């Protein structure tokens, strides 16, 4: 049936900030949805609180609201915009939950808005465990024995009947927050308590555990006429028991016979039909590896992380088709944009292996529990495509950017067999490397299978890799024939791994390979295994015979993407990459994207003129460049990933568009940069580079404590710390870094003061500065973790002028062409430069949106040689916008056990939101609400602050009392507060008898925690335990007094904030 003509205006709900379990895939989905709807002539309204997204770009929807994703704000947008329909199934679990809440509130009926896509009844059936169970029983589909309880007693009673192990899953949560496998009564009590707390409807499912079975997923698409097809099947390499978001996944399924496959495919269609899904749906099964028995585990009646993967894996645009179905179209009416010939009704077939490999944040969170289970911990993922499992796996591993060239971890080779066995038995982020190590040592496949339940098929494939490594090792450099090398490349081994095996340098292997003519070819992703000629310019490499990516003799430039989403390098760089591609196309230049992140808009098949889905490492990138011979490569938008590639690319003789490699190095090399600052007479905090422990200590003594220490090479403040004395400094150097002449440590004076930040676009003549941002938290809290306000609240004209001047000087000194980002600290009235990055920063999307300056577009064009003047922009500070914009960080601490949540120089947030209003309090309120800071208006506030902070805390506490809070504190703090006339309830310390502080938090008697860091960060410390207890119980916990101060402002402004007008992006400037 053709599209519903009653619909003129449709509202789409986005998914909000990036958190673990809900990442960039929903920007990709939302962007496709907005485009698909507009393609059908509809007016589109969008609400999303995340400014770092393509979907919130002015050209994506007619009216865009960067407002908090709460029922109240969504309702206000509905009232203001009066759309005909609401589409909530593209915005992840956030969108779905909002859609459900709003539909149930009756607002849709009142306003005459239709809920589009999957009906409310279906959402209920799929999301409510009891209804879901009933439905499956009705249609005869098997589910594990389970019960739904809303109390711990209920869970224990069930355990009494079926025994352990059991799985606990909270209803309505993301990425399995609060769930887990439990093996004992004690574990059940703890997990059930957490799960109940996290469930939106205070329900948990307790079920029989099928850990070790195969985990199989299907992506299904159904239209309103009951046509139903599967888009993609996926098999988790890690079996049941590990969250699918934390599993290595392959598509299509590789170990299922046709009978098993069709059994599950038929079941998928049956379930989706019984549910009445209209659009995309994901179904997960557990399949017994030794029989035809299976269970239905989960159904997501919406576009999901898996559907983004399935889209990229097959080329089938799931979100686009789901959106068209939502407005009434059927599968036979929607063309397949990839082939241009077939219809959306054809099931995709592929002729390669796709692998998804999760990217975990454990490199940033050294203390985190790395063990994987039912609670997702990955922040992002990579995808790879190869003609064999082995090549896909090795490409994935390269794409992760974790410093390995293949399946070997340096530390594994020195462990003894028992240690390796123990690591194989532990499901964590590194297990696959230990499996490879075990195979190298001749461990039996069956033994590894018994420990891991990873199908022997996969284990044997890994063994193919380690066996070939051995062949290379035996052959040595002399024996490296063309045939042997070709065999290694066909298996997917990198030049780096081959070099290690034959004991050559990587560059020597590369040289030999090029001389021997061993080059990859590029194959197309076409949804149909070459059965039809396709139009898509979407390619992957392999060492085969026929190349399909025909060279075109046109102007072309390569844009390097930013790889997997990780802490410190998020969706904002994808936003920048996409804008750069668009700018190139505006200039009539063919844009070629290289990236390996399946969640992103940059890897959508119609974003660039050509897409190479490949690892962002020198070998794979250079192979593409040698083939494409572009006129240049843009590295400034892909975060540190792309910047790191600049040098090898330039050395291979390719042109870097924009700031040169020498100048990038000038900014990154401590000594050179110091010289530049000295020459320009710009102050920076005193410091030095320590090449040994003694050397570093001497520097600290010279400049005085506190000092900021970090390894010389960092991304997002990795392993960076502020230390206050010798002991802490020595501890740091003993645990966090190994100092050596090759790996020196940087020691800088820690200056307490206001942190300021600018982004600028430099064309070599002048610099356009869209604005100055002021950070709420003092310097020392990573800029990515602090609340930023724009325009600044309290900056003298003199300081502003000085910042502009310094920015000009630095842009000139570094000869920047394109973007640069500078962080300053204002210490005792004096401006210091902390850091200069001649590339796009995290704040570019936020600044672009609020100022209306198309920063990446301009930066791309100046990189190509245009001047700002030519494009109608003058240099200097851009005019102040009409509104105030506040950017607030969002954390995923609930998912990461054993991670300290206190803010510091190491970045910890996973995403961000923006609040826009006419005044600061309202903008702060919106940002805080959007970031999910569930701030109570009253209740009990627990205050435990370090001695050094006690004086500063006093006004805060008084304000809390004024707002009606009761104050609770431990003896020391209580005494000080009482002396100041504050009424305090004294709480027992952790080492005192129950109920102590933690018990109070666990029993919901505390509603707000203000806790500042005391010295020492060992997890056993009380502060750490208090903070963790707060996170796990969902109690807001503030670890910086600066944040606390703002929170009080927000609480004061609550009424004003709730009533502050909602402002569409189209009216910002």
């Amino acid at each position, binding site marked *: 049936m053709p599209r519903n003509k009653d619909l003129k205006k449709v509202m789409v709900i986005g998914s909000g900030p990036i958190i673990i379990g809900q990442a960039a895939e929903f920007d990709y989905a939302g962007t496709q949805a907005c485009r698909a709807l507009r393609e059908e002539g509809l007016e589109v309204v969008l609400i999303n609180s995340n400014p770092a997204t393509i979907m919130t770009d002015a050209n994506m929807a007619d009216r865009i609201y960067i407002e908090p994703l709460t029922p109240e704000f969504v309702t206000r947008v509905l009232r203001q915009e009066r759309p005909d329909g609401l589409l909530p199934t593209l915005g992840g679990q956030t969108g779905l939950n909002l859609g459900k809440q709003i539909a149930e509130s009756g607002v849709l009926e009142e306003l005459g808005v239709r809920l589009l896509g999957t009906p409310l009844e279906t959402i209920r059936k799929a999301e409510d465990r009891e209804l879901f169970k009933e439905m499956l029983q009705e249609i005869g589909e098997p589910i594990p024995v389970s019960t739904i309880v809303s109390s711990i007693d209920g869970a224990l009673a069930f355990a009494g009947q079926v025994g352990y192990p059991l799985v606990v899953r909270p209803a309505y949560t993301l990425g399995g927050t609060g769930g887990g496998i439990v093996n004992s009564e004690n574990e059940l009590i703890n997990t059930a308590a957490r799960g109940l707390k996290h469930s939106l409807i205070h329900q948990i499912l307790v079920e029989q555990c099928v850990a070790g079975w195969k985990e199989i997923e299907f992506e299904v698409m159904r239209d309103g006429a009951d046509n139903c097809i599967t888009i993609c099947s996926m098999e988790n390499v890690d079996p049941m028991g590990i969250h699918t978001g934390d599993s290595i996944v392959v598509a299509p399924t590789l170990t299922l016979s046709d009978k098993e496959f069709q059994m599950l495919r038929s079941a998928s269609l049956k379930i989706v039909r019984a549910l009445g899904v209209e659009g995309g749906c994901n179904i997960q099964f557990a399949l017994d590896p030794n029989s035809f028995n299976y269970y239905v585990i989960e159904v997501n009646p919406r576009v999901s992380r898996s559907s983004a993967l399935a889209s990229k894996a097959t080329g089938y645009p799931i979100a686009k088709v789901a959106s068209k179905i939502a407005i009434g179209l059927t599968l036979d009416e929607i063309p397949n944009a990839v082939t241009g010939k077939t219809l959306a009704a*054809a099931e995709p*077939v592929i002729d390669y292996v796709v692998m998804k490999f999760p990217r975990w944040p454990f490199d940033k969170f050294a203390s985190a529990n790395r063990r994987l289970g039912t609670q997702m911990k990955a922040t992002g993922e990579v995808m790879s495509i190869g003609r064999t499992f082995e090549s896909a796996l090795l490409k994935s591993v390269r794409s992760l950017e974790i410093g390995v060239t293949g399946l070997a971890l340096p530390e594994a080779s020195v462990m003894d067999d028992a240690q390796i066995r123990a690591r194989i038995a532990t499901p964590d982020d590194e297990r696959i490397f230990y499996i490879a190590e075990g195979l190298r040592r001749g461990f039996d496949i069956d033994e590894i299978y018994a420990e891991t339940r990873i199908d022997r098929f996969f284990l044997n494939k890994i063994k193919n890799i380690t066996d070939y490594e051995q062949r290379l090792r035996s052959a040595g450099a002399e024996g490296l024939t063309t045939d042997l090398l070709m065999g290694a490349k066909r298996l997917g081994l990198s030049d780096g791994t081959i070099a290690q095996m034959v004991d050559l340098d990587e560059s020597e292997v590369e040289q030999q390979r090029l001389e021997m003519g061993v080059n990859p070819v590029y194959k197309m992703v076409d949804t149909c295994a070459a059965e039809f000629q396709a139009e898509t310019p979407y390619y992957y490499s392999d060492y085969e015979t026929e190349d399909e990516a025909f060279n075109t003799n046109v102007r072309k430039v390569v844009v390097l993407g930013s790889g997997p989403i990780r802490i410190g390098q998020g969706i904002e760089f994808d936003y920048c990459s996409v804008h750069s591609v668009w700018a190139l196309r505006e200039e009539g230049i063919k844009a070629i994207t290289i990236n390996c992140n399946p969640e992103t808009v940059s890897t959508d098949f119609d974003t660039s003129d050509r897409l190479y889905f490949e690892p962002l490492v020198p070998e794979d990138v250079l192979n593409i460049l040698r083939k494409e011979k572009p006129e240049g490569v843009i590295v400034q938008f892909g975060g540190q990933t792309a910047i790191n590639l600049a040098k090898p690319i330039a050395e291979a003789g390719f042109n870097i568009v924009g700031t040169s490699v020498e100048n990038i190095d000038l900014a990154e090399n401590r000594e050179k940069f110091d010289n530049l600052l000295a020459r320009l007479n710009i102050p920076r905090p005193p410091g030095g580079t320590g090449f040994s422990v003694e050397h570093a200590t001497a520097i600290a003594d010279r400049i005085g404590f506190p000092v900021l220490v970090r390894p010389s090479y960092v991304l997002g403040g990795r392993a960076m710390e502020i230390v206050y004395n010798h002991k802490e400094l020595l501890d740091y150097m003993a645990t966090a870094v190994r100092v050596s002449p090759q790996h020196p440590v940087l020691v800088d004076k820690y200056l307490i003061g206001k942190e300021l930040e600018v982004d600028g676009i430099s064309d070599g003549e002048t610099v356009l500065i869209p604005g100055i941002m002021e950070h709420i938290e003092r310097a020392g809290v990573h800029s990515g973790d602090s609340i930023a306000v724009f325009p600044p609240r309290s900056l003298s004209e003199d300081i502003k002028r000085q910042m502009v001047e310094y920015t000009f000087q630095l842009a000139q000194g570094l000869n920047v062409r394109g973007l640069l980002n500078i962080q300053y600290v204002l210490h005792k009235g004096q401006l210091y430069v902390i850091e200069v990055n001649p590339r796009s920063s995290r704040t570019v999307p936020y600044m672009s949106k609020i100022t209306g300056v198309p920063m990446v577009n301009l930066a791309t064009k100046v990189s190509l040689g245009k001047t700002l003047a030519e494009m109608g922009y003058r240099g200097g500070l851009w005019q102040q916008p009409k509104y105030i914009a506040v950017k607030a960080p969002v954390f995923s601490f609930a998912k990461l056990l054993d991670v300290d949540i206190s803010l510091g120089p190491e970045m910890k947030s996973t995403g961000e939101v923006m609040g826009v209003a006419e005044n600061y309090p309202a903008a702060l309120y919106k940002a805080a609400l959007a970031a999910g800071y569930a701030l109570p208006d009253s209740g009990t506030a627990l205050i435990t602050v370090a001695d050094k902070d006690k004086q500063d805390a006093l006004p805060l506490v008084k304000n809390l009392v004024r707002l009606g809070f009761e104050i609770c504190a431990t003896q020391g703090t209580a005494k000080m507060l009482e002396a100041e006339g504050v009424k305090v309830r004294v709480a027992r310390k952790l080492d005192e008898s129950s109920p102590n502080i933690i018990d109070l938090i666990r029993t919901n008697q505390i509603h707000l925690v203000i806790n500042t860091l005391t010295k020492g960060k060992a997890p056993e410390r009380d502060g750490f335990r208090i903070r963790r207890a707060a996170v796990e119980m969902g109690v807001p916990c503030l670890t910086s007094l600066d944040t606390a101060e703002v929170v009080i402002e927000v609480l004061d402004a609550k009424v004003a904030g709730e009533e502050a007008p909602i402002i569409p992006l189209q009216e910002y400037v």
Partner: protein
Amino acid sequence: MQAVLALEDGTLYYGRAIGATGENWGEVVFNTGMGGYEGVLTDPSYCGQIVVMTYPLIGNYGINAEDFESKRSYVRGFIVRDACAIPSNWRSQGTLETFLRQQNVIGLTEVDTRAITRRIRTEGTMRGIIATGNVDGRLLSIRAREVPDLSDQHFIPEVTVEEIQTIPGTGGPRIAILDLGAKENIARCLRERGCEVVVFPASTSAETIAGYHPDALLVSNGPGDPLRADYAVDTIKQFVGKIPLFGICFGHQLLALALGARTYKLKFGHRGANHPVQDLATGLIAITTHNHGFSVDEQSLLDAGLVVTHRNLNDKTVEGFKHPELPIVGIQFHPEASPGPRDANYLFDEYLALLQQEAK
């Protein structure tokens, strides 16, 4: 050992030999199914053909006889990118390589199967020679131009049953299958629905079949050009208007010929498990298994007064027809699936419903 596929247009694909050694020739076709290779290998409709699997990893779950569609393999050659040496599945009885050797099928692996597929897609189905050992590929491709065309060969005697077989039912109607190379799952699907099934060799006379008093005649799938099965067409003609007639794939083409329509050869055919077919009566789409190199000409169907019931949404070709008054139904694809999706299984129920209606 080295092996090569030499196409008649001169293109050569060198790889590694698996399975039998020696030389064989046939029509080179590709199948896009991502699994179900054991069904492909044992489907008699592939008789005379060298099959290229477009999915690169084949043999992953091994081989097991339960999933065979006939007693043996009829393919003349089997080409895969990556043949799994150590399969893993609880039902696996052996490897792909061993099976090919046992079945005397020459296999070729570690070749760029996508390149072969693209060649066939662009140039159309071609003849080719598959050979193992140190052979001169150029000579082979010259010889490939001289091997018989698929349409000039008679495959049915090779694939049909030797004698009449009766498989008892459980109270359902008696269905005669005219076996032109039937996949076993057709009879299985009928038996599951209670039918008694009597399988007849392709050359059985109409009188002999009629002597069994079947409630319906099902004309099976089979290999080659339908025009080579004129004797079967004659047999079918004698049942028109007497008992309900069903045709699957090749059988559908024969039904069409018997009713006066024409068939033609497709450029590279349909072979796979993902074809969207629309039921024109309901508008509903089923994802179906296909294996045919020939198709029924739509205009000729209309000229013969027949009604098109199903259409392929990819290339719009005819996928099913019926007689306007008589209970005669032809389906170009495989409702019995195996391998492939079971979406069109419902057609067996429709057949049986039609039979019941006729019985009244």
